[in-house]
């Protein structure tokens, strides 16, 4: 098992290298001379030339790429063109809010979507099933920002139950931290909950037809034990897969959600960086997101072996 994980980590190196190449090429794929782009509209030719030399843009592409990778391996993601701060420091500052939002959303999704899917499958064809699946279609069709503004209007502005926007670090207490994340997590989680609930229902429907479920009933097990132990564990592989794939969905959704709820996270940083054409920052963030995604995929494969003993590497 441990050797499998090590092998998998080694296998991710070429993937990360290709991702890094793409990320680095961003600067060159974008139309125009990078130095001109970076320098902005009002720069003199001297300014452009100075930027070109300071960034090493006058050297061959592969040499530049090699130097960039070398610096990244040493923890140096470069310096922001706009703020002159190290990119790693800027990302570090913004990591907390985004990570908090993602984790709360992930937990909310699992706690809500999986039981909903299980109940829908158990009561397949009934009113409860149709209501749950109706909500799933609804949740799936509404864009994050619509849900976000609706929630903020109802629960923050009208009912005044929760703050409208903002973020409080966990260090200042659990409730202040959570309070600010509830609405964003629901808004961001809507699509995700709908997706996971649907997949859970489909996987459970298939499993509930199996002979071993009949055996479990014949043994005198209660409905809860049959559904959540005998059936759910068998349905877990597709569910875990979708939860993992959904994390990519979350990364995209976080950018919008953070804007709606004014959360100073990586999503906001991404938008700001794109608007300012702050290439080192964009590169750093994209690289980080890719890395997280590769890591999540590895985790999914490891979780498979925990839920299904027939899967061995």
């Amino acid at each position: 098992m441990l050797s499998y994980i090590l092998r998998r980590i080694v296998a991710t190196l070429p993937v990360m290298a290709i991702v890094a190449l793409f990320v680095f090429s961003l600067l060159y794929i974008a139309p125009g001379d990078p130095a001109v782009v970076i320098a902005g509209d009002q720069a003199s030719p001297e300014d452009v030339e100075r930027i070109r030399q300071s960034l090493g843009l006058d050297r061959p592409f592969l040499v530049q790429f090699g130097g960039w990778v070398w610096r990244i391996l040493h923890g140096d993601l470069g310096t922001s063109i706009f703020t002159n701060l190290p990119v790693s420091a800027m990302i570090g500052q913004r990591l907390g809010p985004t990570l908090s939002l993602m984790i709360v959303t992930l937990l909310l999704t699992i706690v809500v979507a999986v039981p909903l899917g299980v109940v829908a499958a158990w009561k397949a064809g009934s009113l409860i099933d149709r209501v749950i699946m109706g909500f799933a279609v609804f949740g799936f069709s509404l864009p994050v920002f619509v849900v976000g503004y609706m929630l903020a209007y109802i629960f923050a502005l009208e009912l005044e139950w929760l703050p409208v926007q903002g973020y409080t670090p966990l260090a200042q207490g659990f409730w202040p931290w959570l309070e600010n994340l509830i609405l964003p997590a629901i808004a961001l989680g809507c699509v995700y909950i709908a997706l996971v609930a649907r997949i859970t229902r489909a996987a459970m429907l298939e499993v509930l037809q199996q002979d071993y479920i009949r055996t479990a009933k014949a043994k005198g097990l209660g409905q809860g034990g049959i559904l959540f132990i005998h059936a759910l564990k068998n349905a877990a592989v597709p569910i875990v897969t979708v939860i993992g794939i959904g994390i990519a969905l979350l990364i995209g959704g976080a950018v919008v959600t953070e804007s709606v709820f004014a959360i100073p996270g990586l999503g906001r940083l991404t938008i700001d960086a794109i608007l300012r054409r702050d290439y080192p920052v964009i590169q750093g963030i994209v690289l980080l997101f890719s890395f997280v995604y590769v890591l999540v995929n590895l985790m999914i494969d490891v979780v498979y072996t925990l839920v299904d003993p027939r899967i061995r590497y």
Partner: protein
Amino acid sequence: MALLEVENLQTHFRTPGGINRAVDGVSFHVNEGETLAIVGESGCGKSVTSMSLMRLIPEPPGRIAGSIRFAGRDLLKLSDREMRAIRGNDISMIFQEPMTSLNPVLTVGRQIRETLMIHQGLDKQAAEAHAVEMLTLVGIPEPKRRVGEYPHQLSGGMRQRVMIAVALACNPKLLIADEPTTALDVTIQAQILKLMLDLKRRVGAAIILITHDLGVVAEIAERVMVMYAGRKVEEAPVAELFRSPRHPYTQGLLGAVPKLGSSLAGTATRLAEIPGQVPDLRKPITGCVFAGRCALATDLCRQYAPGLEEKGPRHIAACHYAAKGAIAA
């Protein structure tokens, strides 16, 4: 004394094409410690009968009527909770497919432990120890290691042994075995049958054996009930039934069994088959259910359903011409 008395059992299913009368008015009993075989071809209602006894028929679309008295209580009148306390404890079941009847993602030990923890209130350690004991009892080598393994690590015969261990863990009074050996190799079949009989003697359980394998019936059953199209058509002690089957359908079943060595002995004859198909159970049947396939059928059979009548010692059959049938055989 009768452990189980089934009175006029009717299990019907609502289908788009009408009501399917899978079991239509079957009555029988099982004495304590007795082995009753229920035989018949596919679709005759023998499995539905056994599932009805355990109330494992999904309702709707199914509906079970009649009465099933087990140790004095009518199972059809119990609440779900009371029924759960009986399943796996007083009545347990072994299924046909050992490959798919065990949960693939739970250890063998856990699957045996579960019934003990639910019904006997054992804690995990005690249940685990008992699970190892059960595995030893059903003849699985290295039970201490096997108890932590998953079904896919065991062979088909081993898995059926595990199923038997699960079924017998709580010392049930009645064991329902639904084609327990059909999916196994012939050599393994004999081992499993022997095991079932040994354990039955040990725990004193009664067995309802559901099968279409008449060789198995001859070997282990004491009494046989023959079903056709959701009804009981004949019932007799096993020796009596094999010696003088009264119902033309039973005669057909026995005629369809190849006899080993008959070609060497020079007595080889063509295997007798029963012509035609089982009637559509969604349509009402007038007259004898078997009339459409019976060589002896007359207008009487097609118009009036024969009742179950005593044809010999503890031997009943539903046929207007049963006596004549016995001579014809």
